[in-house]
C-alpha cells in the first residue's frame, strides 16, 4: 500500500518532469549541454514572452506596493492609453530589494537583457547604482521636463553633475506627527511643537514622559533613519564635497549625535529593535509623536481608531548649527529608464506626460493611493488643498508639498547605507557608555574602510 503511494508519486513526477523539460531528456544532461554550448532548445520555448519588452510598444515596468506605486503606475498607463490607443505596458510587481538584487546580478553578469524598460528605485539607493553601473541607465536630460517644477534636493538624488537620470515620483519630505490628545494631557498643543529646536523638543518630551508615561518619539536602533534626518536637516552630510567621510570634525554630526543620545537616555526617544516594533509603538499609543517621511501617514490612516487625534507640523531643528532647518527628506523614489529599454523615445514620452508634467494625473492618484507629488504645481490644485479628516481637517497634502520646497541640499554619497550603519553603531556604543569621540572616530574609520575598495 505504502509502496503504491511512492510509486504513484514517482510516476506522476516523471510525467511532470518530462513535460517541463520539453523532451530535452534528463535534466542533468540538459544543464550540462546548456553550459557547454551556450544554447539549448530544451526549455527555451517553455516560458518566455513578456520578460523583456522587445515587442516595440509594450513596455515592462518593475515596481512594488500594490496600493501605492503600482496603483499610481496603473493610473498613469490608463491615462496615457487614452491619448495613445496603441500604447501597451505591463507592470511586474518587484519589491525594491528584489529590483536591486536583479539589477546587481545583471550588471555583474554583464547582461542587462532581462531588465525591465522602466524601473522604480529608492532615492537612497540610486546613487550607489549610478556610481557602480553607469551603463545600466538612460540619460533623461533631454526628456523635456521643466526641472524647476521639482524641488532641487529631490532631483539631486537621480543626478550626476548636470545629467538627469530619473523622473522624481513620491515625496519624502519629513513631517512631525503628534497625538494631540496626549499632548493636551501634558498641557501642550501642536503649536508648541511647531518650528522648535530639538532641545525644546527634549524638554517637552521629558515633561510628557513624566506626566503621561509616553515617549515623544520612537526610533529603530539598527536600521533607523532618525539621526540621518537630523543631520540632513542641517544641510550637512556625512561626507565632504569630495565624497570622503566627514564625521569626526563635522560639527553638525556631533551636535546631532549629542542631542540624539541625550534624548534616548532621558526617555524622550524609545529605541526599538525593528520596523514592526516601531509601528507597534505608534499603534499602541506608546509614543505620542513621529518624525519621519510623510509616507508614514499611510500607516497612521490605517489605524482608524486614532482618527482625529493626530496633527502634523514641521520637524524640530538642531540647535547650535548655523545651517539648521526644520526640513529634511527621508525615503521617496524616482522612475528610471534602463539601458535595456527597446523604445526609449516612447518610454520618455510616457513618463513626461504622466509623472513629468501632468497635474491631472497627480490629482487622480492622490485619493486612491495617497501618493504625494514632488511636482510643485500639484500643490495648487483643489485636491491637494482639501482638508484631511484624519488629521483634524488639516490640508496635509499641500502642506507636505510646501515643506518639500524648503529642504536643504547636502553632500550625497553612494555609501548611504554604510554611513547609516556606522552612525547607528556609534550611537549604540555611546548609549552603552562608550566615549563619543572614540565611537565617532570608529564610525569614520569603518566608513573609510568601506569606501576604500
Amino acid at each position, binding site marked *: 500500500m505504502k509502496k503504491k503511494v511512492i510509486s504513484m508519486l514517482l510516476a506522476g513526477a516523471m510525467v511532470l518532469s518530462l513535460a517541463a523539460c520539453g523532451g530535452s531528456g534528463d535534466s542533468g544532461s540538459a544543464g550540462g549541454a546548456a553550459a557547454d554550448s551556450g544554447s539549448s532548445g530544451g526549455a527555451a520555448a517553455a516560458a518566455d514572452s513578456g520578460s523583456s519588452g522587445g515587442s516595440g510598444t509594450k513596455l515592462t515596468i518593475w515596481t512594488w506596493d500594490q496600493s501605492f506605486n503600482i496603483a499610481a503606475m496603473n493610473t498613469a498607463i490608463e491615462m496615457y492609453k487614452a491619448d495613445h490607443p496603441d500604447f501597451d505596458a505591463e507592470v511586474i510587481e518587484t519589491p525594491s530589494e528584489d529590483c536591486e538584487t536583479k539589477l546587481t546580478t545583471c550588471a555583474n553578469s554583464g547582461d542587462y537583457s532581462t531588465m525591465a524598460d522602466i524601473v522604480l528605485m529608492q532615492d537612497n539607493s540610486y546613487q550607489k547604482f549610478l556610481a557602480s553601473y553607469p551603463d545600466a541607465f538612460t540619460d533623461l536630460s533631454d526628456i523635456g521636463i521643466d526641472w524647476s517644477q521639482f524641488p532641487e534636493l529631490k532631483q539631486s538624488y537621480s543626478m550626476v553633475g548636470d545629467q538627469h537620470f530619473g523622473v522624481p515620483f513620491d515625496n519624502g519630505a519629513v513631517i512631525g506627527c503628534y497625538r494631540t490628545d496626549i499632548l493636551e494631557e501634558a498641557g501642550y498643543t501642536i503649536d508648541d511643537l511647531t518650528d522648535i529646536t530639538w532641545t525644546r523638543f527634549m524638554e517637552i518630551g521629558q515633561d510628557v514622559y513624566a506626566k503621561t508615561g509616553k515617549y515623544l518619539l520612537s526610533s529603530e536602533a539598527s536600521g533607523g533613519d532618525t539621526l540621518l534626518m537630523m543631520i540632513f536637516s542641517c544641510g550637512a552630510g556625512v561626507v565632504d564635497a569630495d565624497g570622503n567621510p566627514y564625521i569626526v570634525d563635522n560639527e553638525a554630526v556631533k551636535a546631532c549625535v549629542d542631542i540624539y543620545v541625550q534624548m534616548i537616555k532621558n526617555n524622550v526617544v524609545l529605541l526599538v*529593535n525593528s520596523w514592526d*516594533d516601531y509601528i507597534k509603538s505608534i499603534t499602541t499609543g506608546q509614543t505620542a509623536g513621529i518624525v519621519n517621511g510623510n509616507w508614514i501617514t499611510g500607516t497612521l490612516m490605517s489605524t482608524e481608531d486614532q482618527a482625529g487625534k493626530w496633527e502634523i507640523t514641521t520637524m524640530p531643528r538642531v540647535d547650535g548649527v548655523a545651517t539648521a532647518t526644520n526640513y529634511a527628506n527621508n525615503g521617496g523614489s524616482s522612475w528610471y529608464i534602463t539601458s535595456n529599454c527597446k523604445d526609449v523615445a516612447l518610454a520618455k514620452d510616457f513618463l513626461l506626460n504622466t509623472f513629468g508634467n501632468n497635474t491631472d494625473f497627480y490629482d487622480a492618484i492622490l485619493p486612491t493611493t495617497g501618493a504625494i507629488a514632488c511636482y510643485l504645481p500639484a500643490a495648487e490644485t483643489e485636491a491637494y488643498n482639501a482638508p484631511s479628516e484624519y488629521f483634524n481637517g488639516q490640508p496635509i497634502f499641500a502642506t507636505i508639498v510646501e515643506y518639500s520646497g524648503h529642504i536643504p541640499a547636502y553632500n550625497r554619497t553612494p555609501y548611504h547605507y*554604510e554611513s547609516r550603519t556606522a552612525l547607528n553603531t556609534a550611537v549604540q556604543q555611546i548609549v552603552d557608555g562608550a566615549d563619543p569621540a572614540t565611537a565617532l572616530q570608529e564610525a569614520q574609520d569603518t566608513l573609510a574602510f568601506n569606501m576604500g575598495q
Partner: protein
Amino acid sequence: MNTKKKGMTLIEKQRMSGWFFLAPASIMIAVMSFYPMIRAFILSLQTGTGANMKFTGFSNYQRILADKVFIQSIGNTFFYLIIQVPIMLVLAILLAQLLNNQHLRFKGLFRTCVFLPCATSLVSYAIIFRSLFAQDGLVNSILVNLHILPQAYNFLGNALSARIVIIIALIWRWTGYNMVFYLSGLQNIEYSVYEAAKIDGANGWKTFWGITVPLLRPTIIMTFIMSINGTLQLFDESVNLTKGGPANASITMSHYIYNTCFVNVPNFGYASAMSFIVFIMVAILAFINLKVGDTRD
C-alpha cells in the same frame, strides 16, 4: 559492516556500473557548483564593479585582515556554532528516541508538532520572536512577574542577550528538522535490539548512549556536518531577528557578505574572497568531523 569482504566480492563490471550510478549527480554538481565556484574564486582575485574588474592578486584577502566587522562576524558565528549545534543535536536525538517508542500514543501528532517550526514561514517566525523578546513582550512579562528580573530587559538591544535569542531561535527552528533524520535513521535499528537490552537490565539512559547513539553514528555525522555548514552560513536569523545589531554584535559572516553584495555599494570581488574564507572554515571542520566520526575505513 565488514567492508573488506564486500570489496573483494565486487567484480569489475559492478565497479563500472557503480560509476554509472554516480555520473548524473556528479556531473550536475560539477556544472552547477564547481564551475561557478571556480569562477567565484577568479572573481575574488579582482576588484572593481560590473564589467570593469581588474586583477589585483590577493588584495581582497588582505583586506579581510583589516575588516573589523568581518572579524567580529567570524567571532559571532563561531559563538553560535559552539553553543547551538551540540544542544540542538542532543535534543533532536532525544526527541527522536522518545518518539520512536512503540508504546507511545499520538506519535504522528507529536512528530508533526515538533517538526512544525521549520515549516513555519520565516516572516511570521521572525515577527513573533521579536515580539516575544521585546521589552513589553511575553518573555519579559513572565520573568518580571516571577521576580526573576527586576524590570523589563531589552533582550534584542544588548549584545550577549541578542546572541542568545538567536541561539534559542535556531534551536527552536531546527531541532525538529534534525529529528527527521534521526527518526528515519532509527528505523534501521531493529526494535529487538532494544528489547534485548531491556532484558539485560539496561535503563533508558544506558540504551540511549549504548545503542542509539552508536547505531545512529552515520546519521549523526551527517547532521553534524549539515549543522556546521548551516551555522557557518547562517543568514536568516541575523537578518530578520536582530539585523545584525546591536552595533554588529550578532551579525553573521553570510549576512555581512550579503550586505557587501546587495545592500552596500556592491563589491563582488571582496564578497567572493570572504565566501572562500567561509568555505575553507566549513571544509576544515567537516573533514575533521568525517575523520573523527567515520570508523568504516
